[in-house]
Protein backbone atom coordinates (compact mmCIF):
# COMPACT_ATOMS: atom_id res chain seq x y z
CA UNK A 1 0.00 0.00 0.00
CA UNK A 2 1.51 3.35 -1.06
CA UNK A 3 1.34 6.53 1.00
CA UNK A 4 -1.36 7.87 -1.34
CA UNK A 5 -3.42 4.68 -1.01
CA UNK A 6 -3.11 4.85 2.76
CA UNK A 7 -4.16 8.52 2.83
CA UNK A 8 -7.17 7.77 0.59
CA UNK A 9 -8.18 4.74 2.67
CA UNK A 10 -7.90 6.76 5.89
CA UNK A 11 -9.90 9.75 4.62
CA UNK A 12 -12.59 7.62 2.93
CA UNK A 13 -12.82 5.28 5.89
CA UNK A 14 -12.93 8.27 8.24
CA UNK A 15 -15.72 9.94 6.25
CA UNK A 16 -17.79 6.73 6.18
CA UNK A 17 -17.22 6.22 9.89
CA UNK A 18 -18.26 9.81 10.61
CA UNK A 19 -21.51 9.55 8.62
CA UNK A 20 -22.44 6.16 10.10
CA UNK A 21 -21.63 7.48 13.58
CA UNK A 22 -23.90 10.47 12.92
CA UNK A 23 -26.65 8.09 11.83
CA UNK A 24 -26.12 6.06 15.03
CA UNK A 25 -26.20 9.15 17.27
CA UNK A 26 -29.34 10.59 15.66
CA UNK A 27 -31.81 8.20 17.42
CA UNK A 28 -30.40 9.58 20.69
CA UNK A 29 -30.84 13.16 19.47
CA UNK A 30 -34.37 12.34 18.29
CA UNK A 31 -35.20 10.84 21.68
CA UNK A 32 -33.75 13.91 23.42
CA UNK A 33 -35.78 16.21 21.15
CA UNK A 34 -39.00 14.32 21.96
CA UNK A 35 -38.23 14.18 25.68
CA UNK A 36 -37.66 17.93 25.90
CA UNK A 37 -40.72 18.67 23.75
CA UNK A 38 -43.01 16.49 25.85
CA UNK A 39 -41.51 17.72 29.13
CA UNK A 40 -43.52 20.93 28.64
CA UNK A 41 -46.23 20.22 31.28
CA UNK A 42 -43.49 19.35 33.80
CA UNK A 43 -41.55 22.54 33.03
CA UNK A 44 -44.70 24.71 33.21
CA UNK A 45 -45.62 23.09 36.56
CA UNK A 46 -42.11 23.74 37.90
CA UNK A 47 -42.24 27.30 36.58
CA UNK A 48 -45.42 27.99 38.54
CA UNK A 49 -43.75 26.81 41.76
CA UNK A 50 -41.03 29.48 41.55
CA UNK A 51 -41.51 32.55 43.71
CA UNK A 52 -39.73 35.14 41.51
CA UNK A 53 -40.47 36.12 37.90
CA UNK A 54 -36.70 36.23 37.32
CA UNK A 55 -36.38 32.49 38.06
CA UNK A 56 -39.48 31.74 35.96
CA UNK A 57 -38.12 33.66 33.00
CA UNK A 58 -34.69 32.04 33.31
CA UNK A 59 -36.20 28.52 33.38
CA UNK A 60 -38.59 29.19 30.48
CA UNK A 61 -35.83 30.80 28.42
CA UNK A 62 -33.47 27.86 28.99
CA UNK A 63 -36.23 25.38 28.20
CA UNK A 64 -37.22 27.05 24.91
CA UNK A 65 -33.58 27.47 23.92
CA UNK A 66 -32.80 23.81 24.57
CA UNK A 67 -36.01 22.48 22.96
CA UNK A 68 -35.80 24.49 19.75
CA UNK A 69 -32.00 24.31 19.57
CA UNK A 70 -32.17 20.51 19.75
CA UNK A 71 -34.75 20.41 16.95
CA UNK A 72 -32.54 22.61 14.82
CA UNK A 73 -29.39 20.54 15.48
CA UNK A 74 -31.27 17.31 14.71
CA UNK A 75 -32.53 18.82 11.45
CA UNK A 76 -29.07 20.08 10.50
CA UNK A 77 -27.52 16.64 11.06
CA UNK A 78 -30.45 14.92 9.29
CA UNK A 79 -29.65 16.82 6.08
CA UNK A 80 -27.18 14.02 5.25
CA UNK A 81 -30.21 11.83 4.43
CA UNK A 82 -31.10 14.10 1.53
CA UNK A 83 -27.72 13.48 -0.13
CA UNK A 84 -27.92 10.56 -2.60
CA UNK A 85 -24.23 9.61 -2.26
CA UNK A 86 -24.66 9.14 1.47
CA UNK A 87 -28.28 7.91 1.71
CA UNK A 88 -27.96 5.30 -1.04
CA UNK A 89 -24.16 4.95 -1.13
CA UNK A 90 -23.89 4.04 2.56
CA UNK A 91 -27.28 2.31 2.85
CA UNK A 92 -28.80 4.58 5.50
CA UNK A 93 -32.29 4.02 7.09
CA UNK A 94 -34.94 3.81 4.35
CA UNK A 95 -37.42 6.35 5.76
CA UNK A 96 -34.77 8.75 7.13
CA UNK A 97 -35.42 11.40 4.40
CA UNK A 98 -39.14 11.38 5.33
CA UNK A 99 -38.21 11.88 8.98
CA UNK A 100 -36.13 14.89 7.92
CA UNK A 101 -39.16 16.24 6.03
CA UNK A 102 -41.33 15.74 9.12
CA UNK A 103 -38.85 17.55 11.37
CA UNK A 104 -38.62 20.42 8.90
CA UNK A 105 -42.44 20.47 8.78
CA UNK A 106 -42.60 20.73 12.58
CA UNK A 107 -40.18 23.67 12.50
CA UNK A 108 -42.23 25.32 9.72
CA UNK A 109 -45.33 24.93 11.92
CA UNK A 110 -43.45 26.56 14.79
CA UNK A 111 -42.47 29.45 12.54
CA UNK A 112 -45.93 29.99 11.09
CA UNK A 113 -48.10 29.33 14.17
CA UNK A 114 -47.56 30.01 17.88
CA UNK A 115 -47.19 26.40 18.99
CA UNK A 116 -46.73 27.43 22.65
CA UNK A 117 -50.04 29.26 23.00
CA UNK A 118 -52.10 27.57 20.28
CA UNK A 119 -53.03 24.05 21.50
CA UNK A 120 -53.99 22.86 18.00
CA UNK A 121 -50.62 23.92 16.55
CA UNK A 122 -48.84 22.34 19.51
CA UNK A 123 -50.73 19.09 18.98
CA UNK A 124 -49.81 19.05 15.29
CA UNK A 125 -46.14 19.68 16.07
CA UNK A 126 -46.25 16.83 18.61
CA UNK A 127 -47.87 14.37 16.20
CA UNK A 128 -45.48 15.25 13.36
CA UNK A 129 -42.49 14.85 15.70
CA UNK A 130 -43.66 11.45 16.98
CA UNK A 131 -44.32 10.08 13.47
CA UNK A 132 -40.99 11.42 12.18
CA UNK A 133 -39.04 9.98 15.09
CA UNK A 134 -40.58 6.55 14.48
CA UNK A 135 -39.69 6.87 10.78
CA UNK A 136 -36.07 7.39 11.79
CA UNK A 137 -35.49 5.38 14.96
CA UNK A 138 -37.16 2.11 13.87
CA UNK A 139 -35.24 1.62 10.56
CA UNK A 140 -31.98 2.80 12.13
CA UNK A 141 -32.14 0.37 15.06
CA UNK A 142 -33.84 -2.63 13.40
CA UNK A 143 -32.26 -2.05 9.97
CA UNK A 144 -28.78 -0.61 10.12
CA UNK A 145 -28.00 -1.65 13.70
CA UNK A 146 -29.40 -5.16 13.16
CA UNK A 147 -27.52 -5.95 9.94
CA UNK A 148 -25.49 -8.69 11.65
CA UNK A 149 -28.61 -10.31 13.12
CA UNK A 150 -30.04 -11.67 9.84
CA UNK A 151 -29.24 -15.32 10.67
CA UNK A 152 -30.80 -15.03 14.12
CA UNK A 153 -33.87 -13.19 12.77
CA UNK A 154 -34.32 -15.78 9.99
CA UNK A 155 -35.16 -18.36 12.69
CA UNK A 156 -38.30 -16.29 13.38
CA UNK A 157 -39.01 -15.61 9.69
CA UNK A 158 -37.80 -12.01 10.05
CA UNK A 159 -34.50 -12.24 8.19
CA UNK A 160 -35.78 -9.80 5.56
CA UNK A 161 -36.37 -6.97 8.08
CA UNK A 162 -32.87 -5.36 8.21
CA UNK A 163 -32.64 -5.36 4.38
CA UNK A 164 -36.12 -3.88 3.97
CA UNK A 165 -35.35 -1.08 6.42
CA UNK A 166 -32.15 0.17 4.75
CA UNK A 167 -31.82 2.18 1.52
CA UNK A 168 -29.17 -0.11 0.03
CA UNK A 169 -26.76 -2.89 0.77
CA UNK A 170 -23.35 -1.52 -0.33
CA UNK A 171 -21.63 -4.91 0.20
CA UNK A 172 -24.09 -6.76 -2.07
CA UNK A 173 -24.43 -3.80 -4.45
CA UNK A 174 -28.25 -3.77 -4.22
CA UNK A 175 -30.57 -0.79 -3.81
CA UNK A 176 -33.95 -0.93 -2.05
CA UNK A 177 -36.72 -0.30 -4.63
CA UNK A 178 -38.35 2.30 -2.38
CA UNK A 179 -35.13 4.28 -1.80
CA UNK A 180 -35.14 6.56 -4.88
CA UNK A 181 -38.90 7.40 -4.74
CA UNK A 182 -38.59 8.25 -1.03
CA UNK A 183 -35.54 10.42 -1.64
CA UNK A 184 -37.09 12.28 -4.59
CA UNK A 185 -40.42 12.90 -2.78
CA UNK A 186 -38.52 14.11 0.30
CA UNK A 187 -36.33 16.49 -1.70
CA UNK A 188 -39.47 17.88 -3.39
CA UNK A 189 -41.25 18.38 -0.06
CA UNK A 190 -38.24 20.07 1.57
CA UNK A 191 -37.90 22.40 -1.44
CA UNK A 192 -41.65 23.18 -1.38
CA UNK A 193 -41.65 23.96 2.35
CA UNK A 194 -38.50 26.08 2.00
CA UNK A 195 -40.09 28.00 -0.90
CA UNK A 196 -43.29 28.49 1.14
CA UNK A 197 -41.31 29.89 4.09
CA UNK A 198 -39.40 32.26 1.81
CA UNK A 199 -42.63 33.41 0.11
CA UNK A 200 -44.30 33.94 3.48
CA UNK A 201 -41.35 35.92 4.76
CA UNK A 202 -41.20 38.11 1.66
CA UNK A 203 -44.95 38.75 1.55
CA UNK A 204 -44.93 39.62 5.28
CA UNK A 205 -42.18 42.23 4.94
CA UNK A 206 -43.44 45.68 5.91
CA UNK A 207 -46.70 44.41 7.43
CA UNK A 208 -47.42 44.75 11.17
CA UNK A 209 -46.10 41.90 13.34
CA UNK A 210 -48.50 40.25 15.81
CA UNK A 211 -47.88 41.12 19.46
CA UNK A 212 -45.67 38.51 21.10
CA UNK A 213 -46.84 36.80 24.29
CA UNK A 214 -44.39 36.39 27.13
CA UNK A 215 -46.24 33.92 29.29
CA UNK A 216 -46.59 30.28 28.26
CA UNK A 217 -50.04 28.72 28.36
CA UNK A 218 -50.48 26.14 31.12
Amino acid sequence: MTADDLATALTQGGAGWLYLSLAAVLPILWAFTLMVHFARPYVVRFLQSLTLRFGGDAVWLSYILMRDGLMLITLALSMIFLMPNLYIGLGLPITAPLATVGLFGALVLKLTRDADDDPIAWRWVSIVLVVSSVLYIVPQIYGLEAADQVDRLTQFGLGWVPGALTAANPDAGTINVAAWPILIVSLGLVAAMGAFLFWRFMSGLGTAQPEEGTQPAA
Partner: protein
Amino acid sequence: MTPEQVSGVFDAGESFVENTIAAALVVIWLVVLALHLARPYMLTNVRKFTLRLGADLWWIAYVALRDILLAQVFLGSFIFFYPDVVSGKDLPITGCVAAVCAFGALLLKLTSKGEGDMRSWRWQSWLLAAGALLYIGPYILGVQLTAIDNSFAKQLASILVTSQNVGWGLWLSYLSAVAVGVMGLIAVVYNLRQTTTSRSKSSAA
Protein backbone atom coordinates in the same frame (compact mmCIF):
# COMPACT_ATOMS: atom_id res chain seq x y z
CA MET B 1 -0.81 -1.42 6.34
CA THR B 2 -3.70 -3.07 4.44
CA PRO B 3 -7.21 -1.63 3.73
CA GLU B 4 -8.63 -4.16 6.23
CA GLN B 5 -6.38 -2.72 8.91
CA VAL B 6 -7.64 0.78 8.12
CA SER B 7 -11.25 -0.31 8.68
CA GLY B 8 -10.02 -2.07 11.83
CA VAL B 9 -8.82 1.30 13.16
CA PHE B 10 -12.35 2.73 12.81
CA ASP B 11 -13.95 -0.38 14.31
CA ALA B 12 -11.64 0.00 17.30
CA GLY B 13 -12.64 3.67 17.54
CA GLU B 14 -16.32 2.69 17.63
CA SER B 15 -15.66 0.08 20.33
CA PHE B 16 -13.75 2.65 22.36
CA VAL B 17 -16.67 5.12 22.22
CA GLU B 18 -19.26 2.47 23.18
CA ASN B 19 -17.17 1.03 25.99
CA THR B 20 -16.50 4.54 27.32
CA ILE B 21 -20.24 5.30 27.34
CA ALA B 22 -20.85 2.04 29.24
CA ALA B 23 -18.17 2.92 31.81
CA ALA B 24 -19.33 6.54 32.18
CA LEU B 25 -22.89 5.36 32.83
CA VAL B 26 -21.76 3.75 36.10
CA VAL B 27 -20.66 7.16 37.39
CA ILE B 28 -23.72 8.99 36.01
CA TRP B 29 -26.09 6.45 37.58
CA LEU B 30 -24.37 7.00 40.95
CA VAL B 31 -24.57 10.80 40.62
CA VAL B 32 -28.25 10.62 39.62
CA LEU B 33 -29.08 8.47 42.62
CA ALA B 34 -27.02 10.72 44.92
CA LEU B 35 -28.75 13.89 43.65
CA HIS B 36 -32.16 12.26 43.99
CA LEU B 37 -31.45 11.28 47.60
CA ALA B 38 -29.93 14.72 48.34
CA ARG B 39 -33.36 16.38 48.11
CA PRO B 40 -33.81 16.85 51.92
CA TYR B 41 -30.33 18.40 52.14
CA MET B 42 -31.14 20.79 49.27
CA LEU B 43 -34.45 21.77 50.90
CA THR B 44 -32.67 22.46 54.21
CA ASN B 45 -30.28 24.78 52.40
CA VAL B 46 -33.09 26.54 50.51
CA ARG B 47 -34.63 27.56 53.85
CA LYS B 48 -31.32 29.08 55.01
CA PHE B 49 -31.15 31.68 52.23
CA THR B 50 -31.98 35.25 53.25
CA LEU B 51 -32.71 36.34 49.66
CA ARG B 52 -35.51 34.77 47.64
CA LEU B 53 -33.39 35.14 44.51
CA GLY B 54 -30.65 32.93 45.97
CA ALA B 55 -33.17 30.32 47.09
CA ASP B 56 -34.85 30.22 43.68
CA LEU B 57 -31.52 29.95 41.84
CA TRP B 58 -30.31 27.21 44.20
CA TRP B 59 -33.49 25.21 43.66
CA ILE B 60 -33.46 25.71 39.87
CA ALA B 61 -29.80 24.60 39.69
CA TYR B 62 -30.55 21.49 41.76
CA VAL B 63 -33.66 20.44 39.82
CA ALA B 64 -32.02 21.15 36.44
CA LEU B 65 -28.87 19.17 37.27
CA ARG B 66 -30.85 16.26 38.74
CA ASP B 67 -33.30 15.98 35.83
CA ILE B 68 -30.85 16.61 32.99
CA LEU B 69 -28.49 13.95 34.35
CA LEU B 70 -31.37 11.47 34.56
CA ALA B 71 -32.27 12.25 30.95
CA GLN B 72 -28.58 11.73 30.04
CA VAL B 73 -28.63 8.30 31.70
CA PHE B 74 -31.52 7.26 29.47
CA LEU B 75 -29.97 8.78 26.34
CA GLY B 76 -26.59 7.16 27.04
CA SER B 77 -28.38 3.85 27.58
CA PHE B 78 -29.79 4.02 24.05
CA ILE B 79 -26.86 1.85 22.87
CA PHE B 80 -28.51 -1.05 24.75
CA PHE B 81 -31.34 -0.98 22.18
CA TYR B 82 -28.95 -1.50 19.22
CA PRO B 83 -28.94 -5.28 18.45
CA ASP B 84 -25.46 -5.26 16.82
CA VAL B 85 -23.94 -3.39 19.77
CA VAL B 86 -25.64 -5.63 22.35
CA SER B 87 -24.46 -8.82 20.64
CA GLY B 88 -20.96 -7.60 19.75
CA LYS B 89 -19.77 -5.57 22.76
CA ASP B 90 -19.15 -6.40 26.42
CA LEU B 91 -22.11 -4.63 28.06
CA PRO B 92 -24.04 -5.31 31.28
CA ILE B 93 -26.93 -7.66 30.43
CA THR B 94 -29.57 -5.67 32.36
CA GLY B 95 -28.38 -2.27 31.09
CA CYS B 96 -31.49 -2.04 28.88
CA VAL B 97 -33.78 -2.80 31.84
CA ALA B 98 -31.98 -0.05 33.79
CA ALA B 99 -32.76 2.29 30.88
CA VAL B 100 -36.45 1.34 31.21
CA CYS B 101 -36.26 2.24 34.94
CA ALA B 102 -34.70 5.64 34.11
CA PHE B 103 -37.40 6.31 31.51
CA GLY B 104 -40.08 5.21 33.98
CA ALA B 105 -38.74 7.72 36.54
CA LEU B 106 -38.83 10.46 33.89
CA LEU B 107 -42.41 9.51 33.00
CA LEU B 108 -43.39 9.72 36.68
CA LYS B 109 -41.83 13.18 36.90
CA LEU B 110 -43.93 14.24 33.91
CA THR B 111 -47.22 12.85 35.18
CA SER B 112 -46.85 13.62 38.91
CA LYS B 113 -48.56 16.56 40.64
CA GLY B 114 -45.22 18.31 41.21
CA GLU B 115 -42.25 18.23 43.59
CA GLY B 116 -44.56 17.74 46.57
CA ASP B 117 -46.16 14.55 45.22
CA MET B 118 -44.64 12.09 47.71
CA ARG B 119 -46.30 9.00 46.24
CA SER B 120 -44.68 9.66 42.88
CA TRP B 121 -41.40 10.56 44.60
CA ARG B 122 -41.37 7.21 46.40
CA TRP B 123 -41.94 5.31 43.13
CA GLN B 124 -39.22 7.34 41.42
CA SER B 125 -36.82 6.43 44.25
CA TRP B 126 -37.58 2.72 43.84
CA LEU B 127 -37.14 2.91 40.07
CA LEU B 128 -33.83 4.78 40.35
CA ALA B 129 -32.50 2.38 42.98
CA ALA B 130 -33.52 -0.61 40.81
CA GLY B 131 -31.99 1.00 37.71
CA ALA B 132 -28.69 1.75 39.42
CA LEU B 133 -28.54 -1.78 40.84
CA LEU B 134 -29.40 -3.38 37.48
CA TYR B 135 -26.70 -1.35 35.76
CA ILE B 136 -23.84 -1.19 38.24
CA GLY B 137 -24.23 -4.79 39.49
CA PRO B 138 -23.70 -6.60 36.16
CA TYR B 139 -21.14 -4.00 35.08
CA ILE B 140 -18.85 -4.64 38.04
CA LEU B 141 -19.60 -8.37 38.45
CA GLY B 142 -19.71 -9.10 34.71
CA VAL B 143 -18.11 -6.61 32.32
CA GLN B 144 -15.22 -5.90 34.71
CA LEU B 145 -14.50 -9.63 35.15
CA THR B 146 -13.93 -10.49 31.48
CA ALA B 147 -10.13 -10.14 31.79
CA ILE B 148 -9.88 -12.17 35.04
CA ASP B 149 -8.57 -15.72 34.55
CA ASN B 150 -10.73 -17.54 37.10
CA SER B 151 -13.49 -20.12 36.54
CA PHE B 152 -16.00 -18.37 38.84
CA ALA B 153 -15.30 -15.00 37.16
CA LYS B 154 -15.72 -16.58 33.73
CA GLN B 155 -19.02 -18.16 34.77
CA LEU B 156 -20.33 -14.83 36.10
CA ALA B 157 -19.23 -13.03 32.94
CA SER B 158 -20.93 -15.64 30.76
CA ILE B 159 -24.23 -14.76 32.47
CA LEU B 160 -23.92 -11.00 33.00
CA VAL B 161 -22.18 -9.81 29.79
CA THR B 162 -24.28 -9.34 26.64
CA SER B 163 -21.62 -10.55 24.16
CA GLN B 164 -21.28 -13.82 26.13
CA ASN B 165 -25.03 -14.31 26.68
CA VAL B 166 -26.37 -13.02 23.37
CA GLY B 167 -29.73 -14.83 23.49
CA TRP B 168 -30.82 -13.27 26.77
CA GLY B 169 -29.17 -9.96 25.92
CA LEU B 170 -31.12 -9.55 22.69
CA TRP B 171 -34.46 -10.62 24.18
CA LEU B 172 -34.06 -8.19 27.07
CA SER B 173 -33.08 -5.48 24.60
CA TYR B 174 -36.16 -6.06 22.39
CA LEU B 175 -38.53 -6.24 25.38
CA SER B 176 -37.01 -3.10 26.92
CA ALA B 177 -37.44 -1.24 23.62
CA VAL B 178 -41.13 -2.24 23.60
CA ALA B 179 -41.51 -1.08 27.22
CA VAL B 180 -39.89 2.29 26.41
CA GLY B 181 -42.14 2.61 23.34
CA VAL B 182 -45.27 1.99 25.43
CA MET B 183 -44.16 4.48 28.09
CA GLY B 184 -43.32 7.02 25.37
CA LEU B 185 -46.84 6.58 24.01
CA ILE B 186 -48.27 7.20 27.50
CA ALA B 187 -46.21 10.43 27.70
CA VAL B 188 -47.54 11.56 24.29
CA VAL B 189 -51.17 10.80 25.23
CA TYR B 190 -50.71 12.58 28.58
CA ASN B 191 -49.38 15.66 26.77
CA LEU B 192 -52.18 15.67 24.20
CA ARG B 193 -54.78 15.28 26.96
CA GLN B 194 -53.18 18.15 28.90
CA THR B 195 -53.67 20.52 25.97
CA THR B 196 -57.30 19.36 25.58
CA THR B 197 -57.92 19.91 29.31
CA SER B 198 -56.29 23.34 29.43
CA ARG B 199 -58.17 24.34 26.28
CA SER B 200 -61.57 23.30 27.64
CA LYS B 201 -60.76 25.06 30.95
CA SER B 202 -59.93 28.29 29.14
CA SER B 203 -63.09 28.05 26.99
CA ALA B 204 -65.19 27.51 30.13
CA ALA B 205 -63.61 30.61 31.72
